[in-house]
Every structure is written in C-alpha cells, then in structure tokens.
C-alpha cells in the first residue's frame, strides 16, 4: 500500500478512529493489527517474514538475557578456587550469549541476502518465477518482503543492544512484533531502536486532538516536499537522465537531483513521522538540515541520521574493537605516532562502513561506487586532518571567520552533489563517464532539460517558490527555531491560512507525470 494513495489515507483515518475509540490499554494491540493489515495489503506472506524475524530476535534476546541473569555474583570471602570457577562459568555464559547474538545476526543477514540481494544478483524476474511456482503450488510465491531492509536492521539493533546490555530483552512476543512490524516505519524508516520506541508504544498517548493536529501538519509538510518539490523537479531530472547530457546540463541535473532526493526522502520521513505522531508515537528524526553541513562527515550525520547512527553503533565501533583492527593499529604505531595510527584505523573503517551503506542500497556497481566515493573522501580527510591544521595556520585562515564557513559549506555541497552522479546511473562506469561529460561545456544544450514550452516557464517559478519556502523553513530550524511551536502560538485564522495553503498547494501543484511512490521505499 503506497502511502500516497487514497486507499492508505482511508486506512489511516479508519485506523485512527478505532485507535482513539478503544481504551488506552488496547491501543498497542490496535497498532499491531493495523500493521498486519498494512502488510497483508501488499502480500500476506509478508507476515511470515515478520514472524521469522521477530521469532529469531525474540529467542536470541531471551537466551542472551538468560545467560546474563544466571551469572552468579561474587560472594564475600570467596576462595580463589571458587572465584576461578565463577569466572570460567561467566566466560562460558558470555560465549553462549555471544553465540546466540552472532547466530541471530547471521540468520537475519541471511534473510536479507536471500530475499533482496540474491534475486537481484541473479536477475530473477519474480513474476515469471512465481507463475511457474504457482502452477504447482498455489500458495507458494516468492516476494520481495516489504520494508525488509529497514525492519531487519531494527531487529539486529535490538539483539545487539540486549547482547551489549544496553537494553533488556522483551518477554512479550507481540510487543516485539509490534516494534518490528510498526507500519509507518516499514516504508522507508527511520531505523529505530526498541529502547526508543518501547516507551512510545506503551505509554498514555494523550489527547487525540493534539496528536492529530501535530501529526497532520507534519504529514502535509511532508507531502508538500514530496509532491510540490520532489515530483515537480523530478520531471526535469528524468528528462535530464533520459539521454546523454553534457556540460552545464550535467551540473544542473546533479543539483536538481540533490533537491529531488532531499524533497522525496525527507518529505517521506516527515509524512511517516506525522502518521506516527497522529497515533501519539514519536519517532526519531532522520534529517537535520543536511545542506547546511560544513563537512562531508557532518552531512552524513545530518542525512539519513538513523542509518548513520546504526552504522556507527553496530558496525563502526564493533569494527574498532575487532582484533584485526587492533593489530592494524599496533603495526601502524610502529611507523607513526599513536594518534596517526588511530586515524589510519578510522579511515579504513570509514571506507568499510560507507561501502556497506552503499551495498545496503542495492547490488549495482553504482551503489558500491557511491560508498567508495564517500568513504575515500572521508578517509582521506581523516588522514589529512593534521596537515590541514598546519596549512590553515600557515595561510592565516581563521576557523571561525564567516568566509571560511561559507567556503566549507560550498565545498561540502560540491562534494555531495558530485556524489549524486552514482545515484543517477545504472553502473559506476556510466556514472564516471557522466561526471567527465560535465567538463564538455561547449556541448551544453539546456533545451534538453528545459524545453522551450509554456509549461516549463509556468512550472519553474512555482518550483523556485516552493524551494524558497523549503530553504526558509530549514534555515529557521538551523537557527534553532521550532516552527511547529511558533506556529502553534499563532492565531487560529493564521493557522488556518497555513494549513489551507499547504493543502491546496498539494492539490493544485502536486500532480505530475511519472510521479510515483517514495524513492527510498524501493530500498
């Protein structure tokens, strides 16, 4: 069920009605049922995946917790022999816990690999495979599980959190099931932690009016970004990618793509957050004005925050504590200072993490290329950190000066925008070729993106105005102004004007050819 459809809107309204009509203690069960209905609308077999993923995480977490709970505590006046036995027992239990965690994570990753990557790598046409399968076994059907990339990471984070004692194991299977299958998050995240959502799911959800008002405004703003900005600019982006572009055409396509992706992804996340807030469940933010970042590292801490945080907590840090990395650090220490050795290790980990992030998006070489591009730049800047400081001193550059900040902002924008080239092509080779064609300025032909039609002349100013609104809103947030709070303090009729403007703008301008669902729903 695409969340832009009328069907979803009706489903949401019916769901909210039931949710606020039933007693508060049954609300989480209502969410669970709604999630099941949402998944069944795509294919009932999705429930099997949810059950499998929940089952694995649930069992693993309980087993891990059992190992920890059975650890005996040191006694006063303990003999050395007894202490040794206790330590050996503790080590054995730790091994068992580790074994449970590793088994669960491996199983979960295998589900992801076999459901998402293997069919992609083999180029399987699932509709044809299913046709053949169903001729023999009617109920057998291979599906691409809906939202698997997101809820699988959530399940992994839960198991590891229990293993690392950051969270306690859930003893109610259905509670965990709700966390894994919570329907707003299935479309495109954000990848949430159980420790964050547990409180949200099972607390009192306050007044329906306030929740609905806050949620609906966020939904409208999300759809504004998606339908009025992303879908509209997407028309030009698609036209740009539909043939071979040169010179400024490539530059414009990349800039437009950056806006398109931001509008689409952050708009989608706002819609999801809004839907969730309507149910009184606040989910984590996934974007924090990324285009105001002053370094690539900062950009990725502000863009798809939940994925970045997942990678940091569950890939980067474990890697840092991994033996081979410790060995690497030791060896490099022999040739350089301890700090420099740390940087080398961090640079290698950056590279690996971004490669994993790239591959998480898909199997194509363009994804790996995108990961490597970002990883290499980050690794390089980590390695060069000391040298940069020296250069800045010798060039008398003041870190806090406005000009330098603007330079950093533009530099980051440039690096990020160039990186989008990997998103826009079907292989890394094509992307690189496209990048080099940007230098053939003489072959620029803007009519290939902006046809000389009255339609283009009509829509470009609308698009520009919508982008200005987006920029203004982001700027306010960057300044630390909460527009939602400010908005809530406005007079009723001013609020009505804003609501009406957003809603009518979506109806009037949010209609474009080729517009579909959210891009990140495909991952």
């Amino acid at each position: 069920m695409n969340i832009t459809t009328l069907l979803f809107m009706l489903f949401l309204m019916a769901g909210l009605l039931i949710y606020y009509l039933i007693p508060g203690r049954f609300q989480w069960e209502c969410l669970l049922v709604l999630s099941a209905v949402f998944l069944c609308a795509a294919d009932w077999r999705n429930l099997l995946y949810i059950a499998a993923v929940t089952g694995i995480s649930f069992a693993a977490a309980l087993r891990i917790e059992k190992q920890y709970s059975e650890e005996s505590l040191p006694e006063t006046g303990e003999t050395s022999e007894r202490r040794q036995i206790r330590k050996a027992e503790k080590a054995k239990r730790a091994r068992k816990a580790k074994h449970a965690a590793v088994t669960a994570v491996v199983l979960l990753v295998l589900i992801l690999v076999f459901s998402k990557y293997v069919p992609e790598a083999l180029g399987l046409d699932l509709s044809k495979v299913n046709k053949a399968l169903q001729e023999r076994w009617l109920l057998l059907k291979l599906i691409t599980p809906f939202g698997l990339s997101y809820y699988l990471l959530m399940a992994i984070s839960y198991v590891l959190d229990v293993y690392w004692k950051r969270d306690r194991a859930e003893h109610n299977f259905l509670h965990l099931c709700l966390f894994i299958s919570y329907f707003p998050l299935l479309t495109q995240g954000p990848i949430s932690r159980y420790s964050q959502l547990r409180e949200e799911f099972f607390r009192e959800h306050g007044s329906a009016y306030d929740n609905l008002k806050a949620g609906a405004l966020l939904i409208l703003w999300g759809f504004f970004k998606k339908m009025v900005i992303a879908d509209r600019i997407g028309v030009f982006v698609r036209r740009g990618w539909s043939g071979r572009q040169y010179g400024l055409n490539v530059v414009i396509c990349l800039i437009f793509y950056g806006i398109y992706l931001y509008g689409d992804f952050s708009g989608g996340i706002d819609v999801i957050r809004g839907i969730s807030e309507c149910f009184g469940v606040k989910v984590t933010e996934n974007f924090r004005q990324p285009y105001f970042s002053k370094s690539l590292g900062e950009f990725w801490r502000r863009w798809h925050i939940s994925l970045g945080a997942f990678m940091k907590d569950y890939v980067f840090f474990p890697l840092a504590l991994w033996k081979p990395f410790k060995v690497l650090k030791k060896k490099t220490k022999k040739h350089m200072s301890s700090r420099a050795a740390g940087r080398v290790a961090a640079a290698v980990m950056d590279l690996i993490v971004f490669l994993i992030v790239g591959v998480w998006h898909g199997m194509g070489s363009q994804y790996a290329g995108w990961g490597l591009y970002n990883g290499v730049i980050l690794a390089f800047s980590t390695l060069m950190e000391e040298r940069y400081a020296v250069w800045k001193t010798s060039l008398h550059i003041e870190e806090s000066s406005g000009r330098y900040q603007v330079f950093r902002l533009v530099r980051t924008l440039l690096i990020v925008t160039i990186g989008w080239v990997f998103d826009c092509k079907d292989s890394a080779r094509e992307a690189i070729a496209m990048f080099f064609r940007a230098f053939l300025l003489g072959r620029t032909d803007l009519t290939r993106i902006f046809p000389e039609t009255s339609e283009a002349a009509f829509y470009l100013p609308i698009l520009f105005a919508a982008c200005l609104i987006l920029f203004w809103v982001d700027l306010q947030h960057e300044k630390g102004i909460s527009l939602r709070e400010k908005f809530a303090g406005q007079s009723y009729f001013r609020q009505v004007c804003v609501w009406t403007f957003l809603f009518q703008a979506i109806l009037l301008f949010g209609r474009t050819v080729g517009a579909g669902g959210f891009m990140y729903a495909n991952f």
Partner: protein
Amino acid sequence: MRISEIRKRDASGRSDTARRKASTGRGTFLQRNGAGRCVSLRKLKAPKSRAGKAAVLILINIAVMLISAYLLKQPSILETELHEVQGETNYDTIVVGDSHGETAVDPDVLDGKLGTTSFNCARRIMPVKDIYYLIREVSYRNDPKTILYELDPFYWTVPGISLGNDTSVFFAGTDPKNRMDYFLNEMLQQPFANVIADYRFAPRNAAQIPGTAWVKLQPAYLRHEDRSIPMIMKALYLGENYEYRGRGFRYGTTWSAALNRSYSYEKFRAKNVPESNLEYFHKMAEFCREKGVRLVCFYSALPPYRLRNENEYDAHDFFTRLCAEEGVEYYDMNYLKADLLPRTDYDYVDVDGHMLGELAERQTSVLAEILASDRPQMMFVDSYDEVLAGLPEFMGMPGIDPAPWEETESETEAQTETGAGPLEAETEPGPETGTGPLEAETEPGPETGMGPLEAETEPETEDMGETRAGKTG
C-alpha cells in the same frame, strides 16, 4: 523619544505608522465586514470548541476545492455523451476507444451501410482500464449488440487510469455500480490528491478558465444536451481543426502543420504492456460474451508516414495474438489492401493519426463492409512488406523529417551507453531512458515537451499533449 516623532503622534498617542495601519489595515490579513468596515483576520473570532475549529478548517478547504474544481475541471464531453447513450434511443452499435476512434468512425455512415443505430463513445485519454468500465457504462441502460473497440497501442502501455481530464468514467458515468467498482478497484490505488481534486493547475487549464466557467453555466450543458458539445470543444480549444457532427463523432476539417512539429514517437514494446491491462482486456471479452455482445477490435489506419517509420508490425503481431487468445475479432486497418483505403499523410489532421472527416467516412464504410462480410480476411494483406508496398511516396510535410527515428541521438546513445547492440536495443529498453511508457501516460505536464509554437498557437496540441504525452514530445 525624538521631538519629530512626538509631533507625529495624535491625541490618542498613536504614531503615524500606527494610524496608517489602523486606517488601511496594512500588515494584517484583511476582509471587509457587512458594513464595509475593514476587519483583520486576527480580530475574527475563532470557534471555541476544537470540533468547531476543525470543522471551519475543513469547510474552508472544501470551499476552495469547489471553486478550483469549478474553474479548472474541464467540462466533460463524455458525460454528455453517456447521458445521450442512456437516453430513449437504444444504440445497438457503440464505438469505444481513444481520440483516434473518436475521429475515425462516423456513426451515420455505419448506420447507412448496416442499418444499425450507432454511437461513437470513443474519447481522448482512454487507457485500457477505462475502456472496460466504459463498455460496462454504455451497457447500463442500453442494449448494445456490437461494440467496436479502436485499440491504440499507445494506451496499452499505460497502466493508469484517466484522472484530471474530462474523461474519467467515475465522474462522467451514470451507472452507480460501475462507478463504485471503478472507485474501489482503481481510484483507491491512485494518489489521494489526484482523486479528491480531479483538476489540475496547468497553463492550458488556466487559459481555459473563462471558457470552462462559461460552459458550466449553460443550461444545455447542465441538462447534458448534445448541443453543448461544440461549446465544450470551443472551451477546451478542440474546435480548431474539428467539427462536432453528432453522436460522438469529431469530424476533422483541416490538416495542421503545427501539430506535426510536436509529434514524437514511442516505440511499441509488448513487454511494456502491463499485466493489469491484459487482465482488463480479458474482463472486457468476458463481459461481452456474458452479455451476448459482439466485441470487435480494430486499429484505425495510420498515416503512411508512421507506417513507414514505426514498428507497427510489432503492434499488429501483439494484438493479433492477444485477440485470438481471447476469441475476439481483430482488424488492423493498416493491413487493408491498398485499393480499399487509399490515403496520403494529408488525409489526416495530424501525423499522429487523427483522420480528416473525409477519410474517416471512407474508413467507416470499409469497416462496415468488414463487419457485414463472411470472409473479411480477403480484404487484408498478409505481411508488412505488402503494407509498405501499397503506400504512396512520401510527399514531404512541413516540420516532418522523412526518416526521423533512424539515427536519433538518444537512441544511438542508449545503445552505446548500455553496450547493447541494435538487436538488444530493439527488444530491451535502455536503462538510460528512465521514463517508462507510463511516465508519459495520462497526465500532461511540462514533460510533454511541446514546442512553444504548438502549445500556444495550436490548442489541439495541448489536448494531444495531454492524451499522448509520449507521442507529442
């Protein structure tokens, strides 16, 4: 406080700026109350209850939507036609299809030859799904014996439905059950904005506002009378090259050079036909079988230029096979023996294939003979080579390249970039194309790629941009 500022204050202590604001209301949202005094929105009393606040917000938005719909939603020719079809006369032969069918079959000629009572319900922007519901709609209070379906390959690659135009079966229809099914099966799956607001704010719609607003107030339109159709055509700028001749037939009057310049071509690829369209065609065949209706599919004859340059043979093979599978008659008028329907590119309003009235009458006459014949196959040639052999020499047309798609840059590039040889490129769309046929689909937009001249001077192009975005640009 400076002296100059104190002087500027009046007796009540208000500054100049404050007085100006009070008198003009500048800086606030203004409205005039009944007595003609200015009041600001800030002073308007908000409803006290939460339900009241929500209700006012909803009512304001509904009012804006109604006004927008009145001004921007195109008046519907299909709605008027469907009311006529459901009227007292029983039409035993109904033509369905898209704009090609609308301009290609003259009910008068058909009736003259076959003694039938026919009606042409073909309209622009008719994806396959809509055709199914249209067939159900025309069978509501009517008892058709034959349904002639002009199937245009372009719409077969469109998975969507018609929304935002004047041809939505839901908004134009009269059969409650059919409309409900259409809503449940199709409209629910559409973006919510497109369904709840069946209008769009585009340059063409903005330009049509005066005509649209005027037509919607006409008693003839409100009563769904036949004579309102020419008014609607004029309001939608469809009347430039056509005349309305009654019973749904749009008679092409003049050949248009400007329309040709905006024509571009989307290769027909069977693999781009969505599964859902095949299912709907199956439903159509089933429905007609159940009702005892003779379903006849035909492909209206295209201009020689298109036959020479496009892969119409692929479309022919695809539809011949499909119709055979469903047990439905299929006649590809492009494969008629040359002497049965001689024509040049100048027998059309445009190179896209909308016929001039004279050719439409001749084609209808041949179609009637086919329908009446026991051995219609005798009237057709077997191979595409024979089709090409029967075509006249290319006479040249302003704005038209003699062989435009043989070496277009984009196609060559697609092949080079994907590393696909010519054969692969023919069977597999290059990944670079990005826009599937459906992206060119039912909705217009800047992506129609119309040249400025066509868009501004040839209103029909705008319409066609809407209907055949992929083809017109």
